[in-house]
């Protein structure tokens, strides 16, 4: 049973979240669900068993709910910057028109509980777990949940065999879904999910510094230059206004992975490295002066945010890896309770 249908909260999100949390608790306490329509909680007698983990069916229910909410609802921090962008655009322009449709779409998707965007994207799971956690079992359950979510229409049939062109129809296949495990010193399991569409993935870029044509050297100013070049090259093709996740350094593979993980940060956080915090701010401000605007129609908002981190590099290499996220910035996360229920939403 879904531990929580995410409340349709708006500005009063925190208060709403608390209420919801309570609601979860109360539902969870009732051993036999009142709505026996769906599958009843298996452990009516499980009060005494304090197994960390609960049943597989409960876990699957929680994961499917995570996928549903991620696909249909934008997190509050993202909605906030989109509304600000709408306010900023001049009235009666195509940019304002685009932002208005975007706003209407966010509201409608939530109301109808249907995919915000038909491209439900690469399904990227990030699992944070305690020591001694069974990754292969969890992988299998994530896969089952993805199949289920696809059947329910929360995810589009989006996984294609690169050699034959055949669509698996269930979003499984080599590399799909993408699952990243991170062990941490905690007792609970946290699962974050990001759905990243193909349009924005296609405008991602990786630069190797120095870059002669752009006059970009191996320093933060060089980094700034290549990022702005990527923003310009993307134009409206990544469904802007977008958000950048960036990694300075690393090898080519690690750089791209880290750049995506930067997109797990809340838009309103502040980078703990002052020089990167400054760079993030500057990239957004300068990009918004380029006049690319929503959908590339021209206008005042080209970027909604930018998040940067740095990995060590080899003396010979200096990569800047850029992941572009569209305005339909679908990310959510859950913390699992001891019965595999959704104990807490992370965004």
């Amino acid at each position, binding site marked *: 049973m879904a531990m929580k249908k995410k409340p349709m909260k708006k500005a009063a999100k925190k208060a709403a979240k608390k209420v919801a949390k309570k609601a979860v608790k109360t539902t969870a306490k009732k051993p036999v669900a009142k709505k026996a329509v769906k599958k009843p909680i298996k452990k009516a007698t499980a009060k005494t068993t304090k197994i960390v983990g609960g049943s597989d069916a409960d876990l699957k229910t929680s994961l499917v709910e995570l996928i549903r909410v991620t696909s249909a609802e934008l997190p509050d921090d993202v909605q906030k910057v989109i509304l600000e962008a709408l306010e900023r655009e001049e009235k009666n322009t195509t940019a304002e028109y685009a932002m208005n449709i975007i706003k209407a779409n966010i509201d409608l998707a939530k109301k109808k509980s249907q995919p915000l965007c*038909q*491209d439900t994207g690469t399904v990227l799971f990030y699992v944070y777990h305690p020591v001694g956690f069974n990754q292969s079992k969890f992988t299998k359950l994530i896969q089952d949940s993805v199949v289920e979510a696809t059947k329910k229409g929360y995810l589009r049939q989006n996984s294609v065999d690169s050699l034959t*062109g055949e669509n698996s129809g269930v979003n499984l296949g080599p590399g799909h879904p993408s699952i990243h495990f991170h062990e941490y010193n905690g007792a609970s399991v946290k699962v974050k999910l990001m759905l990243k569409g193909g349009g924005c993935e296609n405008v991602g870029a990786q630069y190797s510094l120095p870059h002669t044509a752009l006059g970009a050297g191996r320093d933060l100013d060089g980094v700034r*230059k290549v990022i702005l070049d990527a923003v*310009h090259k993307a134009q*409206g*093709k990544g469904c802007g206004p977008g958000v950048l996740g960036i990694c300075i350094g690393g090898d080519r593979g690690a750089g791209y992975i880290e750049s995506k993980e930067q997109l797990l940060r809340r838009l309103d956080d502040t980078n703990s490295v002052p020089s990167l915090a400054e760079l993030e701010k500057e990239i957004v401000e300068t990009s918004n002066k380029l006049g*690319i605007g929503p959908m590339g129609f*021209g206008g005042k908002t080209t970027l909604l945010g930018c998040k940067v981190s740095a990995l060590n590099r080899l003396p010979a290499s200096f990569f800047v890896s850029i992941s572009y996220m569209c305005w339909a910035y679908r990310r959510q996360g859950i913390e699992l309770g001891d019965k595999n229920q959704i104990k807490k939403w992370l965004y």
Partner: protein
Amino acid sequence: MKKLNFPFTHEAVRELKVGDMVLITGKLFTGRDAVHKRLHDGVKPPVDLSNQIIYHCGPVILQDKKTGKYQVTAAGPTTSIREEPYQADVMKDYGIVGVIGKGGMGPKTLAGCKEYGCVYFHAIGGAAQVLAEKIDSVDAVHWLDLGSPEAIWELSVTEFPVVVTMDAHGNSLHAEVEKNSAAALKEVL
């Protein structure tokens, strides 16, 4: 706000200019990467596309198990530039009056628009729910062997909202924004 109603004609789309916000009512045929490649390879389309509009879209479709009826649950545009190698030829060979997509297209398509009397309509990328609401019915599906997102879905729409970003007179908003933003970029590098 302008309106474009079915049956579409080359004359009607020639009237449209870059920057026009248009509501389209009538029929749309989805067609994206695999469809364009197949058409370009010379396979005859399963339906007559003359005077029709192709929509670059891979919708989320659910089929009612009992009735077999299809329902579109999400249907925003996909990135159009991938069809750049094919689009102008598809305009020429099959007589379409326009395409709907996102992100804009390049010089080859722009020249095609001018020569064959076509328009590029930009739908709002990611707005899958608002756009799906404008779809009244799924009338047919063709080439389902390409997979659901890549098939040709025949859709009836009412007041489907788009912006003309490339017209039949050689104007492209994308070329203009690209040029202006390149100049602005130069200033800040």
